[in-house]
């Protein structure tokens, strides 16, 4: 068993519990385990992968291979609000790139980056299955449809405003 650089905290207890349930299955699924871990930690840092490797007895190299293959897994933490702009076909033909460009300028970050105040991460996705409302973006779990560059900017503004309110 390799040594992992883990600082024990309740998150690991939660993960341990999830893995225990998974391990009851004949063939515990690595991808399920990674999903649970990402739900708990918000992303998949090295220590967590090391922990899973020990628990499921799967080589760390294989886990890396899997994590890097799938877009859904993140190895970097996201900001408080993860903005996902859909660049699927229906959204693309209705101008989602313009929405992306507008938000990128507005937030002054590129895709994959996080704002200096750690409030927003800008990311892209391929279709949420809400194509009837294209163009669409998701902020954490909320979907916003029928966007225009201006409408998208005002939604971000609204988040900022709420954030400022709660902070004082």
């Amino acid at each position, binding site marked *: 068993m390799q040594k992992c650089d883990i600082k024990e905290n309740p998150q690991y207890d939660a993960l341990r519990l999830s893995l225990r349930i998974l391990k009851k299955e004949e063939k515990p699924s690595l991808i*399920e385990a990674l999903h649970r871990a990402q739900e708990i930690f918000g992303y998949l840092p090295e220590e967590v992968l090391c922990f899973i490797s020990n628990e499921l007895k799967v080589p760390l190299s294989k886990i890396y291979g899997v994590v890097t*293959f799938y877009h859904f897994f993140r190895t970097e933490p996201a900001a408080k609000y993860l903005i996902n702009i859909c660049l699927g*076909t229906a959204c693309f033909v209705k101008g989602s790139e313009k929405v992306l460009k507008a938000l990128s300028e507005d937030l002054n970050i590129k*895709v994959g980056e996080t704002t200096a105040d750690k409030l927003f991460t800008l990311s892209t996705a391929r279709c949420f299955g809400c194509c009837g*409302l294209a163009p669409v973006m998701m902020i954490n779990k909320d979907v916003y449809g029928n966007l225009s560059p201006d409408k998208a900017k005002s939604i971000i503004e609204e988040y900022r405003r709420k954030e400022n309110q709660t902070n004082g």
Partner: protein
Amino acid sequence: MTILTVLICSGAACLSSGEEAVKNKLMTLINEKNLQDEVKVIETGCMGPCQYGPLMIVYPDNSFYISLNEDKIEKIVDEHFIKGRPVKEYLWETPETRKKVEEKKIIPFFEKQLKIVLGNCGNIDPENIDEYIGTGGYEALAKVLTEMTPEEVIDVVTKSGLRGRGGAGFPTGLKWKFAREAKGDQKFVICNGDEGDPGAFMDRSVCEGDPHTVLEGMAIAGYAIGANKGYIYIRAEYPLSVKRLQLALKQAKKYGLIGKKILETDFNFDIDIRIGAGAFVCGEETALIASIEGERGQPRPRPPFPAQKGLWGKPTIINNVETLSNIRKIILNGPEWFSSVGTEKSKGTKVFALSGKVINTGLVEVPIGISLREIIFDIGGGIANGKKFKAVQIGGPSGGCVSEQNLDTPVDYESLTSLGAIMGSGGLIVLDEDNCMVDIAKFFLEFTVDESCGQCIPCRVGLKQMYNILDKITKGKGTMEDITRLEELAKVVKSTSLCALGQTAPNPVLSTLKYFRDEYYEHIKEKKCRANVCKFDEIEEKVIK
């Protein structure tokens, strides 16, 4: 005594248009005005016309209210529920005649549709198994378990002419027969709910609107091939589908409809849900199997086909969500009933996700063989904002674009393939004069380059080169030789890639070259983009890598 039944759509699109607030308002008002006994409210899955959400139908009047908000609800409760006068100005309006339509069934969007798969979607509460059972749910499972041998089940499915709805159109009965005949101590049924084609949301809507249909179809498939374990593989991007399927599964297990000794027979069938992790190629059946096994989702060479050697090396059938959702009706109504709908070689209906530049976007189910023109202009209501139709993209990254001159072609597997498109999963994206066809081709290649698993060289390298050429053309730097190279590369990638991702990825390029060659030439010779999408003078800084 219930006097009015109110169906309110809680599909994904309506939820994001504010359905929750509308429903809460409705419930508050019903309580405030003491209407609990007179008005029954049911939250359903997708009703179809997503563009106009939040949506609500009031029976027995059949009034179809669209684009609701809290104020409108207030007025509807006062006028319609209490005084019995439907609020006309909030009803669906036909764009052609600008007339409010007073009954749902005569709305043109619904008139040409035929709902077999979507029969329950938008009509029952997907979170309540009793409502499903009330529509004849699980009767087909009971029938096969008590009255039919597995061979008879396969025979009925074969005779119905049902073909796979996940893209390739392989005859379902034949697939089941192969798996039945394959030797193995254990066999598996996998339901493919990966729906990776961006612009497609049919499977999502079925899983959200009628999850038990999927479970019942899987159990029947399990009985037919001799499997007692099934997996549903669903995209991580569809959290609501996951939630509704999990709930349905729990209820079905409680009722003894899934699990051990189903309906007190000797048949055991359990189902687990597996969540994808955002890789398009995982929709391909062998990659999907690898993903369930916890590996990188890389396709494996076929043969052996999954029916012989699938999940963990055991005989496995993989069917699409929509394919499985047809099964129970085929069993109950008989193969002749099913094959009376459709064309000679393609039977039944197909669900399409209509989006892009049409007036009515949303989910539609039509008899196979209907023309594209009917779907886009009659059901879809034509092109939005008075623009001109240019093309319709069918089949996503493996499909192609169909131009105006071919709009009267019947929609079936063979006809679409002969046009250079494919039936595919069912995404129909309408393009108008503001869309550049070279840009669209480039968009799809960017997608497939990104999603190629990188195992085989033609797909990994060939597609990238094709992309580079298209990029050059959209920047006004293309040459006529580039067109020739593009076509040569397309041929090589098509014929030598390992899996269907690479084998079909050149289709969007080939079909646009076939029907919109002029536009390519204009970009090269005149540095002109008639849709004004491509910019030739300035080099735009791209925000996407």
